């Protein structure tokens, strides 16, 4: 009993230590956002600012148009995440609950798409999108992300755990396939949907190279690209960068807090054999 308690205390202490280690850089960044560049670059470093300043935040809208960039990123992240969750759930449902010729081959193909490095396809993809006139349009960011191999895989694995008997009972009661999917399967997959939502939202939120290549107009640009403009050829405005980055992680924290209860369960459910 004592040994078990001691083990639990040790485990929690270790986890607390690792948690603090993980959070420390974010805390340092957030506090440094209230320092001047001179203090950030000084040899004598302190965690708390010696002189607190909100100048970095005040200048953000004037020099950086953070509200527009922030709105653009929120719009894109929410839109793409919604589309990916729906298409992944739909494809996952079909691949796990319907019997048809080629089902395994299609799933293997979906998994195969995850094996191709992003960097290999980016230039031909860029050329294709420019050729069809989609440059500087958000469609160029939504279309390639609308179907996710990872999402389909995750939802297929999760939906495999939904008992066939429940679906059959609904069908016997006269439920259509649309009804079965939307009213029965989706609610029973909410943990996996939460996990996928978090993953997908973060990927879109921090995606940099593709939005940078496709979007030219400053007013349509996303936050991840905007943040890089703090680093010039000869130096970096660390104060501005830290202030903008501190603000940019707020939605990520909000999304995680909303979904965190279901996140672990959802991530674990994807491991269930389909």
């Amino acid at each position: 009993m004592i040994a078990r308690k001691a083990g639990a205390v040790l485990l929690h202490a270790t986890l607390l230590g690792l948690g603090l280690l993980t959070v420390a850089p974010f805390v340092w960044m957030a506090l440094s956002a209230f320092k001047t560049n001179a203090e950030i670059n000084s040899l004598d470093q302190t965690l708390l600012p010696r002189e607190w300043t909100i100048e970095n935040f005040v200048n953000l809208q004037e020099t950086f148009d953070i509200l527009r960039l922030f709105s653009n990123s929120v719009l894109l992240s929410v839109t793409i995440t919604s589309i990916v969750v729906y298409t992944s759930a739909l494809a996952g449902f079909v691949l796990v609950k319907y019997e048809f010729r080629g089902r395994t081959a299609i799933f293997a193909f979906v998994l195969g798409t995850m094996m191709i490095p992003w960097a290999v396809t980016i230039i031909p993809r860029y050329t294709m999108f420019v050729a069809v006139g989609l440059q500087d349009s958000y469609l160029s960011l939504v279309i390639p992300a609308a179907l996710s191999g990872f999402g389909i895989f995750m939802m297929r694995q999760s939906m495999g755990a939904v008992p066939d008997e429940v679906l059959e009972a609904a069908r016997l009661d006269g439920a259509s396939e649309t009804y079965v999917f939307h009213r029965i399967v989706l609610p029973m997959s909410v943990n996996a949907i939460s996990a996928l939502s978090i993953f997908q939202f973060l990927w879109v939120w921090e995606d940099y190279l593709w939005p940078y290549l496709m979007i030219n107009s400053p007013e349509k640009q996303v936050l991840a690209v905007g943040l890089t403009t703090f680093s010039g050829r000869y130096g970096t405005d660390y104060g501005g960068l830290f202030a903008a980055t501190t603000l940019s992680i707020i939605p990520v924290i909000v999304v995680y807090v909303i979904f965190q209860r279901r996140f672990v369960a959802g991530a674990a459910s994807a491991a269930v054999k389909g």
Partner: protein
Amino acid sequence: MKRSGALVASIGVTALVLVGCSPGEGSTAVEVTVAPSGLPVQGETLTYDPNRLVNDGEVISLDWWLWDGDEVFQAFADAYTELHPNVEISIVNQPWDDYWTKLPLALRDGSGPALFNIHNSHHDNLIGYLEPYDLPLDALAADYLGVDAHLVDGQVHYLDYGLMTGLVYYNADMWARAGLTEDDHPATWDELREVAQRLTVRDGDRLTQAGFSFNSLFREFSLGLPYQEGQHLFAADMVTPDLDNPTMLSVVERFLDLYEVDQVGSKDFGPVADESFGQGQTAMIYTWGHFYGSLLEDYPDIDFGTFRTPVPDTGEEPYAYDRYNGESTTGINAGASAEEIAVAQDFVRFSLTHADLMRDLCLHYSVLPMYTALADDPAIAAHPVLSALGDVDRYIWPGPLPAAFESSVDVMWEDILYNGVEPAAALATAQQTVEREIAHDGFVSRENHYAAYPAER
């Protein structure tokens, strides 16, 4: 029913936004029917007459991509569009590193901007997409230095508006504490060694203030100072690199002596010399003009002074004080429409002849102006960096050096300082590396364009 309607409406709004119908900044350009009149013609030999319509007064928009200094370049765009309200120039600021990924892709696929800033290190990637300047070359050469070094098949696609090079920065407070005045600015390397010793502070055996540091700034002096003694970076054929020579070795040993003989600094004291200077640990460093901006922005508490790069012998004008690199003028996209190219050509001519804006640009980047109209400009003469450099014509440009030179010199110094490799052996390795890496580049040096280049070599 209501929910369905709301869903359809929200999907519609989202779709509109996604296809790019978001309320953006509308064009501010307006059609013009009457040409400006009575405005002064600007420029020296190369002139710009604003008293005419551009693009027949019809509205036209140009994109201008750049990676830095948007506010100073915006001034050019604003001045031009004030003269020609039918033209809109939209500046798009990009991150430096990825600019060189996106720009060539966009130019290749026909979606690039009409105007884009150039760095000459990317010359080979860009030259195929550049429209030659539609400017009289004799007038251009009369007003701008170094034009002939930028001729490609008898045409100029861009040139240098300013020259950036190296100089010595010193901490003025440490200088005064050591009992030194402005009269003590070293003119020779031997004098610098003496001054550095006076500026060095120790606590017993421990170094607490370096008199001079060059940690991580190796490429700056190694590829510039051999010129002081007439040693070029390339053989007479302008193609074969020449790093492994006695002059280069003497430069390496001179700097090594600062640490090993004079002990005015250490490889272990402040791993990055310019940061160490900014943090008040080091009294003197040698670096390029851009550090001035970093000092003002990142280290405003450091009171500093500058002086020109010392030379080997007092009273003797060196072959060249140092190597320089040019800050390039704007490029014009050869793939843009004929109307865009015509307006872009007009804008470039306007920019090259606007002395006030050109002065501001040079001051912003701490570069010596290549525009001869600014040769005696008081604001340039008063600038701490530019006043230290002296005559623009005593600096040599080897051309847009392949990156292999700088990276090999960095490795050479790291081997010498941290891996115990003998200087001669490290130099030989650097020579071999550069030879191997630029063998198929087709790079041709511009050293022979230097005014003092020997006729017999």
